[in-house]
């Protein structure tokens, strides 16, 4: 099977009333499996939109995204749910953890949706927490965690259903430089050790150049 993510003529136009705001225009890229991509560009250039489209959270206005040979643009809402469950894991700038749940519960949530038995998912959740270095934070709720710790929990959650691709939307945007480095290193480690494809949106060109195999530059919704 074709393991590449093939993006062809991808266009996304947001409508606000009668005004059309183009977020992405005719973007065509190919993502090789197991590599680390950095997506850079100014804010509003369409980076997050690209990630949301690959993550199946949104549907393109036109164009196609081939993932494992299937076009996300053609998928039903149900199929997109399957895509989000098993194919990709998402990480956000603002962590997006459920504030009322503990670190472990947050990690377990995706496994509840995929129907993994309770005992199994708890065991797996603990292993994941250990892997991101938070074995002692199992029962802490997000407000009791530092920014770096919260993002590690989010990374562990993204990996819960063993996806092939991690989509990280400015994962270091809210973190200080030292913590940022730790998070980026964690992503690099996942890329190297587990062979995960990583797409990381970032403002930080220096980091992007240091860690990524390839940089995708976006400007006004177009690849440059």
């Amino acid at each position: 099977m074709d393991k590449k993510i093939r993006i062809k003529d991808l266009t996304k136009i947001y409508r606000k009333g009668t005004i059309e705001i183009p977020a992405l225009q005719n973007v065509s890229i190919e993502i090789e499996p197991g590599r680390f991509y950095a997506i850079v560009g100014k804010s509003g250039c369409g980076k997050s939109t690209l990630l949301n489209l690959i993550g199946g959270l949104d549907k393109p206005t036109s164009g196609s995204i081939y993932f494992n040979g299937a076009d996300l643009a053609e998928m039903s809402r149900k199929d997109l749910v399957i895509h989000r469950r098993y194919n990709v894991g998402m990480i956000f700038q603002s962590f997006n953890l459920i504030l009322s749940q503990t670190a472990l519960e947050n990690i377990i949530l995706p496994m509840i949706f995929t129907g993994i038995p309770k005992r199994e998912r708890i065991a797996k959740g603990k292993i994941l927490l250990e892997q991101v270095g938070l074995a002692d934070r199992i029962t802490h709720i997000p407000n009791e965690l530092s920014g770096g710790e919260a993002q590690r929990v989010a990374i562990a959650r993204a990996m819960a259903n063993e996806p092939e691709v991690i989509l990280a939307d400015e994962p270091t945007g809210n973190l200080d430089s030292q913590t940022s480095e730790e998070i980026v290193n964690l992503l690099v480690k996942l890329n190297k050790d587990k062979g995960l494809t990583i797409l990381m949106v970032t403002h930080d060109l220096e980091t992007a150049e240091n860690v990524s195999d390839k940089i995708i530059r976006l400007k006004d919704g177009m690849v440059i």
Partner: protein
Amino acid sequence: MNLADMTKMGFANLWRTKLRSTLTILGVIIGIGALASMVSFGTGMQKNFTDAFKRSDLFTSMNVTPGEINFNELSHGDLSSISNLMNKTPEPLTDSILERIREIKGVAIAFPEETFPGRVKIQHEETSTNIQPFPAHMAEYHPFNELLAGSFYSDDSSKNVIVRWELLHNMGLIVDDPDLNIRLTKEDSINGRQIIPADSIIGKTISITTATINRDLPKNPLGILMNRDFQPFSEVELEYTISGILKRRDEFALFRFRGGVFVPLETARSIPRLNFSSVWDILNKNRKEGAYSSFYVRVNKMEEMTRVREEIENLGVSVFSISDQLAEMKRAFIIIDSLLGAIGTVALIIAGLGIINTMIMSILERTREIGIMKAVGGSENQIKTIFFVEAAFIGLIGGIFGLGLGWLVTRIANLIVKTQLMDFDAPEMDLFYFPIWLILGAIGFSILVSLAAGLYPAIRAARVDPVKALRHD
């Protein structure tokens, strides 16, 4: 995602906003409480009524009267019964008809139902009442099978009689009943009356004085005017022994027998009487010997009513039974129950609006959370289910506690009615009734209404756009 996960999630979500959840559930509790107590009142009324009917054998007994106009046919435009009536005289209720009724399969007992007035005297107390000839066989049936004291006479030629509690009361003999908490009124105390034990009446002599028309008319009708000693009526006094006392009837129990004193059937034949139910008797004209105005017929089982009734009607006489009215009564009760239910349902609908409000608030607050769930692989159905479980939880808890509240309210209402509105010595009675279908139905209905109220919020939650939700503050 299984039920246990969803239940846990739903409950956790409610627990997070305890105050709001509690208030919402309180709304449901009040709604279900109102509904349950209303319906329980309707059901209780029906039950008290039906029980009283059953106890008073109204479903198993009927009255046979001479052939009459069939009002039912008449109201449907069928005039045949009128022409029948014009063409032939109604079949009189004779002993031979009675015999034929007794031979019908399923008939437990049949006897002429008649009463005649008389004066009764026990010791020095005296009053007037109705005397009713009554077969000893009726001792098997309620209320004659559970007398306050003494025993029913064993055969129809016995010299024993049964008296009613009320008759003794009228005579100033206030008989104690351990079940009823009998007390003296002020008037009783002023008159120096006392409560006496029931056993003190048993074995006492009761004299019955009846009047009859003096048939020894002077040959010359003017003689009536001239003979000062002529009495148109003559009186006869006979003595009997009281063998049993019938219990006091509570207000809700229907009692169809009018007699104050029940006299064995054969014994009663020897009592001279004026039967005012028959005008012919007074005029002593055209009266067929041995004809009665009505028969009391009792069947063994309720199911046999219709067949026995038809067979009796085939003898050319009319039959009336209260079970005819049963269908109509049931309809009336359905209307009453529906009205009471509707009032309760209004309360529940308001509670339902409260649920919708709470859940929409909850969705607005949790928009981001819903977005997260979608991003990590939650399907629309799963998210819908989580909210449905929350709604069902509100319904379940509200239903259970609402039922408790309804029960409590009915207990209090019952107590108030008992202590304030009814006679202090009135028998125990429950105005309300909670059958199992009401208990399960109330909880089920509560869940159903809650789910219906949760339908729109749940769909709205499932439709949340994850991209917008994740940007949501």
